[in-house]
């Protein structure tokens, strides 16, 4: 189902002519795109296209050089990461960044911190109301783990889990903040077909529950089956936008991923 | 006026000691990224070795001095390979692991130095070093002070040329920036690290022997005192520029002596440490250092 940026309601996330340079390298260059509320948006492009940099800019880990980023109409390009998280943006990481030494449950509890509903003082003193709230949050964290099918691993050290399982823990941790927008950076990297489908189903069920998702992905099947709208980047710039099938069939996108067909002709001739 | 000039010369000599020590400390700090708490002990031990060479082996000044310098370098090399090398093979930990390990070395070497000097402050016998005092226009110029200042100048220039103009210097700077990248560029990091450690220990050992002579204080306190001031010289001057360390060290020495003379002796360390703290808070890269102290 395609939803174009020109819909009646304003988009949840708007990126407006954003630039980011590292020395002489333009990681993101004059990028404009948006994500509609309640949609699953895909972000694709060859390695080095600037997708993770864009995620870092949105989540507040990097400041943009110019341009605007608006979340629910509010400017966030100058905001600090923890403020952005409190406003409702959560993310995962391309190379899984779980907290070393903490169990799976503790990872998700860290994600639930901003929703703890009690002051640090009350928690320190161990007041009964605070303890009840803590237990409730633990139950909620276990529920989140159940959603990613890892409830049975709650008390294991997160770093001992398999790569695919660690990615799911990271998603559960991000969900702990109760976000309105979830940024997933290559969530199915290193997963097989079945696991990737499960992630896709999870993303759809999250969308059905009211969450908006922006997913960086290389997996073409995933983009086709689960994304409503796809943006393609290359060399930091916007390359194409539209439905997944439109983008994948787009000649410029094909050239970016596979090389120009004229080059392929030359190779055939040499043989 | 005479008093002023005399104290100025004292300040220059004292500052040269700080600078000389700081040069060694700074090399390790900038190149190997290690805050080495044990660095002062190399100076203490160099003084102890030189004193032993004079008293037990009856060596004249220059050979004893060389023995001390060599001893300082050797000690630094041993500490680097025993304490820091095992850490390098392990990823992670960074500055704090190296610091804690250097504290271990500091504890061991300081205690041993205390035992070696019988927990006292020893002095070099008067005839073991040049103790002539020249007089220029009525101002006394002890030979040892002249030697100190000249040594500092020679070492500074040599190190500067080594670091900025030689291939080894490029290798040093490459290893300091990124060991893996440097080895990919054909540099043998272990070789560079070992030589750098030796140079650093030798330089600080040089300061230790001269300092032990001029302050009549051969003990583990010598190294600790030089360490703190040398550290200040490195920070104020710029952690990766030996010329900056030299300038800052001399300036601090002069400031200290003048403060003690004209303000109060209790404030003498204060000016150095105030400058140290000030620079760390406001301009960590010092007067001549480069921006961007990025360590893995």
């Amino acid at each position, binding site marked *: 189902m395609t939803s174009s940026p020109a819909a009646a309601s304003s988009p949840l996330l708007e990126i407006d002519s954003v630039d980011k340079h590292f020395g002489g390298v333009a990681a993101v260059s004059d990028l404009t795109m948006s994500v509609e509320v309640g949609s699953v948006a895909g972000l694709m492009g060859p390695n080095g296209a600037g997708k993770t940099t864009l995620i870092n800019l949105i*989540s507040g*880990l990097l400041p943009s050089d110019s341009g605007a980023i608006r979340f629910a109409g509010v400017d966030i390009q100058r905001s600090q*990461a*923890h403020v952005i*998280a*409190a406003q409702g943006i*959560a*993310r995962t990481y391309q190379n899984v*960044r779980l*907290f070393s*030494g*903490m*169990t799976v449950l*503790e990872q998700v509890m*860290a*994600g639930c*911190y*901003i929703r703890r509903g*009690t002051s*640090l003082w009350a928690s*320190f*003193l*161990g007041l009964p109301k605070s303890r009840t709230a803590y237990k409730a949050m633990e139950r909620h964290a276990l529920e989140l783990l159940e959603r990613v099918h890892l409830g049975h691993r709650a008390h*294991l*050290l997160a770093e001992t889990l398999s790569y695919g399982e660690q990615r799911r823990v990271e998603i559960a941790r*991000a969900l*702990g*903040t109760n976000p309105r927008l979830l940024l997933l950076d290559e969530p199915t990297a290193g997963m097989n077909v079945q696991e990737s489908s499960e992630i896709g189903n999870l993303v759809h069920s999250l969308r059905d529950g009211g969450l908006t998702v922006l997913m960086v992905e290389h997996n073409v099947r995933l983009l086709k089956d689960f994304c409503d709208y796809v943006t393609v980047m290359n060399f930091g710039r916007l390359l194409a936008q539209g439905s997944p099938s439109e983008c994948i069939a787009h000649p410029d996108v094909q050239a970016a991923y596979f090389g120009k067909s004229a080059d392929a002709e030359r190779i055939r001739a040499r043989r | 006026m005479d008093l002023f000039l005399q104290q100025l010369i004292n300040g220059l000599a004292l500052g040269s000691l700080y600078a000389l020590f700081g040069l060694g400390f700074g090399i390790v700090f900038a190149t190997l990224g290690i*805050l080495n708490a044990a660095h002062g002990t190399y100076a203490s031990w160099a003084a102890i070795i030189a004193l032993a060479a004079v008293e037990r082996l009856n060596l004249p000044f220059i050979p004893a001095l060389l023995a001390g310098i060599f001893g300082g370098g050797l000690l630094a090399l041993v500490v680097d390979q*025993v304490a820091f090398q095992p*850490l390098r093979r392990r990823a992670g930990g960074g*500055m*704090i*692991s190296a*610091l*804690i*390990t250097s*504290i*271990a*070395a*500091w*504890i*061991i070497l300081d*205690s*041993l130095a205390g*035992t070696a000097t019988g927990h006292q402050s020893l002095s070099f016998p008067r005839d073991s070093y040049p103790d002539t005092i020249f007089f220029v226009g009525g101002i006394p110029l002890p030979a040892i002070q002249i030697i100190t200042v000249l040594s500092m100048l020679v070492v500074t220039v040599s190190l500067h040329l080594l670091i900025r103009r030689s291939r080894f210097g490029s290798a040093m700077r490459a290893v300091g920036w990124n060991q893996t990248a440097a080895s990919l560029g054909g540099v043998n990091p272990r070789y560079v690290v070992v030589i750098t450690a030796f140079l650093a220990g030798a330089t600080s050992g040089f300061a230790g022997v001269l300092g032990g002579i001029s302050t009549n204080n051969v003990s583990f306190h010598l190294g*600790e005192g030089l360490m*703190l001031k040398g*550290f200040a010289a490195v920070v104020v001057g710029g952690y990766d520029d030996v010329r900056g360390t030299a300038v800052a060290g001399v300036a601090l020495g002069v400031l200290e002596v003048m403060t003690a003379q004209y303000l109060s002796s*209790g*404030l003498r*360390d204060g000016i150095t*440490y105030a400058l*140290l*703290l000030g620079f*760390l*808070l406001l301009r*960590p890269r010092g007067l001549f250092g480069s921006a961007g*102290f990025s*360590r893995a």
Partner: protein
Amino acid sequence: MQPLVDFWNAYRSTLTFALVNSFFALSTYAVLSVGILSFATVTFAAFGGFLGVRLVLQTGIDPLLALPAAAAAGALLSYVIALIFLRLESHWMALASLALILITRVLIINVPGTGGVNGLSVPVTLPFFMFALVLLVAIIIFWRLSASWYGIAARAVREDAAVASTLGIAPRRIQTVAFVISGAVGGLGGMLLALALQYLSPDTYFVNIAFTMIAAVVLGGSYHWAGAIIGAAVFTALPVIAQAIIPEFQDVANGVVLLLIMIFLPRGLIDPRAIRLHFAARKAVAQAPRDATSPAAGGAP
């Protein structure tokens, strides 16, 4: 009975100093547990110690009542320091905290009321069980901190401050809280040291304590508050034990043990992660034979 009494008389002061050093170690641990390397504990101790002693000397109150004042003084100073220092990059902040100790000594020498270079005599002290009691209170505080939401946030900030911030945890806020805790515990420790030594000099609160206490925390295990106390105990007791075996070289013992720990057990003696891994491995082994006897295992070679 008599041997016990003799033991007590001989080692009471060592035990007292082990308890006092625990405070410095806990103070260092408090900031280390949020990922900050800082030597400022010594400055907090100096501030709390001198202030507490002056309070007792001038008003004649019971030293026990001066303890909260010392803690409060340390907490206040640490809050101010945190505001300035947390703006710095971590390497420079560590060095700045070292510079802070150096400046503190100069201030102690030159500020009136501290006894200057000659030092200050402390005519009062506390009975041993009081030291132990105050440490027990500190232990309860650290236990509560670790078991509360603050503990979770602190561990997250220490492990990966950037990721923690994207989960809504404000690193600077958590680190400021850590500094205040460090200041309070440090100030308390400073006063207790003054009462144990019954004498204060400009060298009482100096670089030596700073270096040995950070080493003690890392040796004991910098990932749990119990590590700080164990480390402080080892560092205090080891030279005393070593004196009986290798006199003349007893101080070297601490350095050697520290070096061995850094090379072989870098996370220290008490490491929750290693303990968890160990129990997980034991559990896996315990389950394996059960799985092997299931029908599905079949006749594997």
